[in-house]
């Protein structure tokens, strides 16, 4: 090494050593996160430990009221079931689109991505509103069934769980598809050809090659769909009407209408904890499938 090059190198090293610390880069987001995310959540836990709506004394009564009431436990179970059913439907539809995506040309893939991302960016309120038009008694589904002679009277799928799950599928499907397609897009086409050449049917190729290789995308998609559909306040309240009750509606009613913040905080935390629990299970399942 020449003297000049060594000088230059020493200079660079010195500059690196004298360089300013890097933590200021993360400090702003970190402070915002602690001050306006962790602090409120800690306060939520504190609020939930109050016994009465006026928050005059501490006590486990709000928790007992939720955990001891079969009505609220059923609401909690219904919420988690709704999430699981939505995951199941979006999983089937998502894999079907994924398989079409696998065999699509680059131009078709671009078009498909556009069709998936546009609804994702469109307001949830707008998409929910569209389902009122489709599922109502004067809506598309009812009119089509009448025209085909499948039914003799107009019917409404609003305020039914089926209607809610279909509309949630539309809202959540992009969340399933984005991680899934990104993983599927990386599958080596030669593997599929090899599977075929070795005599596997297309079903067998799907089960033994495509789905195992897509497991990380499927896991990520299921997590996002479950988390989003259990907390989908707008769809649950608009499509479900007053008839179907889920935890987000209870949180809203208890806090904004009834002003019982401790109880609303309890329901919020139960929603948070149960969603985290199911996410943990999905994550664990995903890792087992891969292993």
């Amino acid at each position, binding site marked *: 090494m020449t003297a000049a090059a060594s000088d230059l190198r020493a200079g660079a090293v010195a500059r690196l050593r004298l360089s300013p610390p*890097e933590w200021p880069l993360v400090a702003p987001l970190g402070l915002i996160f602690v001050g306006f995310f962790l602090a409120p959540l800690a306060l939520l836990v504190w609020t939930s430990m109050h016994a009465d709506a006026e928050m005059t004394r501490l006590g486990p009564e709000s928790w007992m009221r939720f955990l001891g009431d079969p009505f609220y436990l059923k609401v909690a179970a219904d919420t988690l079931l709704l999430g699981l059913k939505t995951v199941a439907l979006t999983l089937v539809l998502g894999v*079907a689109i994924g398989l079409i995506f696998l065999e699509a040309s680059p131009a078709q893939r671009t078009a498909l991505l556009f069709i998936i991302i546009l609804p994702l960016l469109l307001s949830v309120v707008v998409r929910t509103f569209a389902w009122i038009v489709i599922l109502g008694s004067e809506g598309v589904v009812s009119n089509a069934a009448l025209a085909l002679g499948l039914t003799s009277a107009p019917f409404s799928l609003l305020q039914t769980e089926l209607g809610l799950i279909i509309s949630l599928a539309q809202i959540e499907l992009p969340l399933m598809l984005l991680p899934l397609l990104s993983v599927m897009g990386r599958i080596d086409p030669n593997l599929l050809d090899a599977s075929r050449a070795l005599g596997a049917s297309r079903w067998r190729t799907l089960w033994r090659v495509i789905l195992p290789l897509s497991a990380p995308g499927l896991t990520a998609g299921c997590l996002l769909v479950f*988390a989003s559909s259990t907390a989908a306040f707008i769809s649950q309240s*608009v499509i479900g009407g007053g008839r179907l009750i889920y935890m987000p509606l209870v949180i809203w009613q208890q806090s904004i209408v009834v002003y019982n913040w401790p109880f609303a*905080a309890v329901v919020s935390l139960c929603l948070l904890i149960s969603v985290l629990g199911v996410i943990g299970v999905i994550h664990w399942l995903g890792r087992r499938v891969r292993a």
Partner: protein
Amino acid sequence: MRRIHAPADALYAAVVGLLGLIALAILVGPVLVVLAVSFTSEPSLRFPPQGFSLRWYAALIDPAQSGHIHEAALNSVTVALRAAGVATLVSGAAALWLRTRSGPAGRAVDLAFMSPLVLPMLSFGLAALILLTTIRVRPTLFWLSAGHLVVVAPYVLRTTAASLSQLGQPLLDSSASLGASRLYTFRRITLPIIAPGLAAGAFLAFMASMDNVPVSLFLSSARTDMLPIRLWGMIESSLDVRVAAASGVLVVSTTLLLLAMNRLVNLSRRISR
């Protein structure tokens, strides 16, 4: 050998094709239906719409009838611009810090920052309302922006981190050994590489804030009405056809924005990566 599976393979094609069609219909159908209904000439949401008119768009534009919708839309845009703007700065900086930290600590910080994407933000909305009430401040547009900021920051973090993965350490090292200052290296190497990721993240953050319900539901009030909450109220109280017209405006503007972002930073590819 292929013959053996012919019936099973035909069934496979039929099942995948049918499910794929249903999935595409569920994805796109509602968007088209809401556009069609917005041009109805009747005060009902029947589909197919009866007659063609622009009366609901006229009603939507009329300040006398729809002034409160305009106000809510303006509030939403203001909050979304602030939240997305600040998120781009702070998340972009945080992504630079996270780039070199692949250990457990770095991963834990990353997971924490990304958690608003999976945690039920309705719980956070309530928590934020309780916090503001405890410190006795009225939820203004400033606080709404702060609440949205936490929720939309992960989008910028994710897209910036993705574009940072293309930035090799050798590139930075050679820039430094050629005598460039860190600021110069940042300006000439890092920034051009992450700029598309920052732009894509800023756009996604803006759209997510425009559409945010869980935080706005708790922090907005009559004075600080937000567009999604206002539209939700209109749907719940009476099936006002102006909601269809407002939806039409949102469908068209979202499509145009997505087309523009696809052209500028190849957004579709970027978020499906």
